[in-house]
């Protein structure tokens, strides 16, 4: 199944639930002469694991930010779960974002909250009842093997552990799609592999994952589809 719509092909509206996220002829620039992304079209299928590779500055993070509504495309459309993404529609965006999880290279953990509080935060801001939060946090920490660190603070954790907390926070709400923005960028090779293995396990449980990395060695460890960004254009690489 081809995940990448060739450049220039008009995007047909998607039907059914097979396509979880979609970029259609998207162009995005930041004031420079060359656009960061140029007429990129992409369809992510439910239940798949995708690597998004490319050199630094190739537009990987921009593509992720477009998917989660942090940026607005200059041209083209972005669809999530069959709905067009419009960052100006606060309520609709909040609803869409609750169906996905995001993890970052720099973990983005809150230093003044414990591990459990960091994970619970994702549910707290949605108004989830306290008892449900407790139960879900326990489950999420168990999944990332950090139950024993629930009351620890992020500063006392290693990079790998911090990233696992970040993953627990991203999955605690039961997302359908996980966007991982260079999650191994700050980690040593061994820890990177552990994080990849963890995300791979989550994918096997049914989660759709988009994993950006500039480290091609990682993509060879597991057999997943690879999308490659080069000079703002998207290419599909064969399975490794």
């Amino acid at each position, binding site marked *: 199944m081809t995940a990448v719509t060739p450049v220039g092909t008009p995007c047909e509206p998607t039907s059914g639930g097979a396509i979880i996220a979609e970029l259609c002829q998207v162009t995005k620039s930041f004031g420079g002469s060359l656009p960061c992304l140029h007429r990129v079209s992409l369809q992510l299928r439910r239940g798949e694991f995708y690597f998004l590779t490319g050199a630094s500055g190739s537009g990987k993070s921009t593509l992720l930010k477009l998917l*989660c*509504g*942090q*940026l*607005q495309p200059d041209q083209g459309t972005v669809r999530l779960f069959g709905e067009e993404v419009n*960052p*100006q529609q*606060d*309520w609709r965006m*909040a*609803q*869409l*974002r*609750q*169906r996905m*999880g*995001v993890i970052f290279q720099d973990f*983005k953990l*809150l230093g*003044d909250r414990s591990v459990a509080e960091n994970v619970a*935060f*994702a549910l*707290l*801001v*949605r*108004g*989830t009842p*306290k008892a449900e939060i407790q139960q879900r946090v326990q489950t999420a920490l168990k999944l990332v093997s950090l139950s024993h660190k629930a009351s620890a603070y992020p500063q006392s954790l290693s990079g790998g552990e911090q990233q696992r907390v970040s993953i627990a*926070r991203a999955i605690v*709400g039961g997302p359908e799609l996980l966007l991982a923005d260079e999650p191994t960028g700050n980690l040593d090779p061994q820890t990177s592999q552990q994080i990849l293995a963890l995300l791979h396990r989550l994918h096997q449980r049914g989660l759709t994952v988009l994993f950006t990395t500039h480290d091609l060695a990682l993509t060879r460890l597991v057999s997943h589809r690879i999308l490659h960004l080069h000079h703002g254009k998207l290419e599909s690489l064969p399975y490794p």
Partner: protein
Amino acid sequence: MANLSPFPTLDFLIPEVRRSLWRGGWLNGAAVIAVAVTLFIFGWGWQVSQLLGTGVESLGNRLEITAYVSSNLSATQVAALKEQLAALPGVADFTWIDRDRAWAELQADLGLKSEQSGLQLFDTNPLSDEVKIRAQSLEQVASLAHQIAQKEGIESVQYLERALAGLQSVQRVVRGVTLILVLLLSLTVVALVSAILRLIILVRQAEIEIMTLVGATQTWIYTPLFIQAASLGGGGGLLAWIVGWGSSQQLQQWLAQQTSFRAFASNASLEWSAGLGIFLIVVGVILGLVSTRLALQTTAPMPK
């Protein structure tokens, strides 16, 4: 579709507001004091203006317009004039003093009898009929006097125009100065509180980004800030009222001890009422909310 509560829950709000206040640190104190100073000045300006207004009003009510009626009017014309004067807008009441009564009163005032030499130089009663008119309000006195003077049969009109105008201008100055001071200080307060909130928003950028990405709405993200600013404003209003109430008590006690002010102190109330307190708290809360709106407009991240 995921569940989404439109308004933040208390489980979320209470710790977030507490955390945000903690982050504000001593800047919160600065904001409360700035609001308190503004509202304290406003409160005293209001009190003094009210006091002055009441004084001017009561004095104005005692200010009468005296109109002198031409002596060659017939009885029919006098009756018509009485009707016209009574029908004028702004007339609270009027007293017609006919010339014979006025003459008798003058003689009585002077302690003379008509046959005594002092007044024998007048063959006839030299006075004319006189009308004493009281206006319904201070502002109406001047225009009423003007209208009375226009009436046929009225020879002249007298009232304390300059004194009245002077009192009114003092009242206007007090009100104007209070208003300008309060406006300037309110702008300062809004600038200060919104600067504090901007700092807090900048400190919380990472947290706000995470909240956005995990599916919080703007209402969830920024309600704690609105509550924080409203608390600071309300706190400032309360502090202004407490200090104002205390100072008014002290001033009233001091005035009562001064012989020359005793009469004034017994008549005038300087006390800051509970109603004024509630009003100051509400104004403080509004200042806080306006500051938050301003801070969000200039700081809150929007997708580009």
